């Protein structure tokens, strides 16, 4: 695990005001809504972002997903980090 991922694990990812995760009933998919932006979530992103409730740490989110998908925690933590870091750079997630 890289230091960068390791350092991020205790942080609590949350959506800032103006960014909302929503299940789009009309199209049956999850979308992340932001100022003049709309990102359609693939199933993995949807699974991760639904767990970002402003309470759970990234580590807790990784644990839940590793259990849910019976997958390796190292791989999951890297995937979760890449997703959240990318959104944080676009100001769509606070970490």
């Amino acid at each position, binding site marked *: 695990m890289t230091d960068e991922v390791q350092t991020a694990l205790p942080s609590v990812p949350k959506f800032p005001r103006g960014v909302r995760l929503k299940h789009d009933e*009309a*199209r049956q998919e999850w979308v992340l809504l932001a*100022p003049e932006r709309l990102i359609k979530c693939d199933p993995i992103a949807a699974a991760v972002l639904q767990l970002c409730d402003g309470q759970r740490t990234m580590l807790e989110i990784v644990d839940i997903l590793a259990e849910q998908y019976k997958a390796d925690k190292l791989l999951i933590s890297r995937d979760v980090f890449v997703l959240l870091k990318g959104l944080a750079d676009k100001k769509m997630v606070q970490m």
Partner: protein
Amino acid sequence: MNSPLPSTRSIGLPIGLLAELTHRCPLACPYCSNPVALEGRDTELSTDDWKRVFSEAAKLGILQVHLSGGEPAARRDLVDLVAHCASVGLYTNLITSGIGVTEELIHQLFDAGLDHIQLSIQDADADSADKIAGYKGAFKKKQLVAGWIKANGFPLTVNAVMHRVNITRSAAMVELAMLLGASRVEIAHTQYYGWALPNRSALMPSRAATEKAVADVDALRKRHAGAIVIDLVIPDYHATYPKACMGGWAKQFINVTPSGKVLPCHASETIPDLEFWNVKVHNLSDIWHRSPAFNAYRGTAWMAEPCRSCDRRDVDFGGCRCQAFALTGDASATDPACFKSPHHVLMKDIAAAESSDGADTYIYRR
């Protein structure tokens, strides 16, 4: 139209709705996107009408609602409308001039669930900003409002419309937006519809000034990556390719005027003979799928050459129908912003002539 209507199944669902709550506005900006014939207060939809429209929009698949005008704060029911949008799950964006907005209103909008605020600023220079807006003290008031927006915890976008008088201060506008705590700034080069068309010769910047402004803003985008998002509305009189206007006609967006007319874009009433339906008569879903105006230029079947066989026809959708009509008299022509248009040279000639020898007074929007 000669072509058959597209089947309901081939029509996608809209994602955004621009609600022009009123055409009333304290400012008089000469590039206002509202039509030259403004709709009066007595024709405006009621609170209940708007709530029904927003409920129908959410059901249809609209995700984001942009509450605009005119100045939307001129509507006394603004907080009530925002609360209704939030209750049906719509993301709400307030597009305001800041004039007529109080700190108490910002606070109430936050509690009602408003998601985001876009504040217009006319120039980075105070005197010039007030002159453009036709309103003394506007610049100062907007600084105050930006402070209230941030103090209440809202994300802020600053919108700056650029033209001949302020184009040399494009970079200063980005820096002002950062100073005000904006997380996003729109550097929007004037689009020549609505009031901007009769004011075109007083607004048109030179090609050299436009290119410098675009380069300056590009450099700032790199320098401030991660700190502020910079979006650019392209100056298409100086472009090679047209913009993908509205992301394609009747493909993603719906515009509702203060009186309830439903348009594929805010300027589409400038095209003669289009039949618009009204929310007081038809359900929004019916209007999206079946109204003549929405089906007139939907898809690519309406296209003539050079669009019809162009490999960019699904990229820019032939550009803007309103601009095609304004400059060629034919709304189904290729947008003259495209270098393939036979009218492209005309557009360049207009830009060159009006930027060097244009009017020096505005026809203010009243």
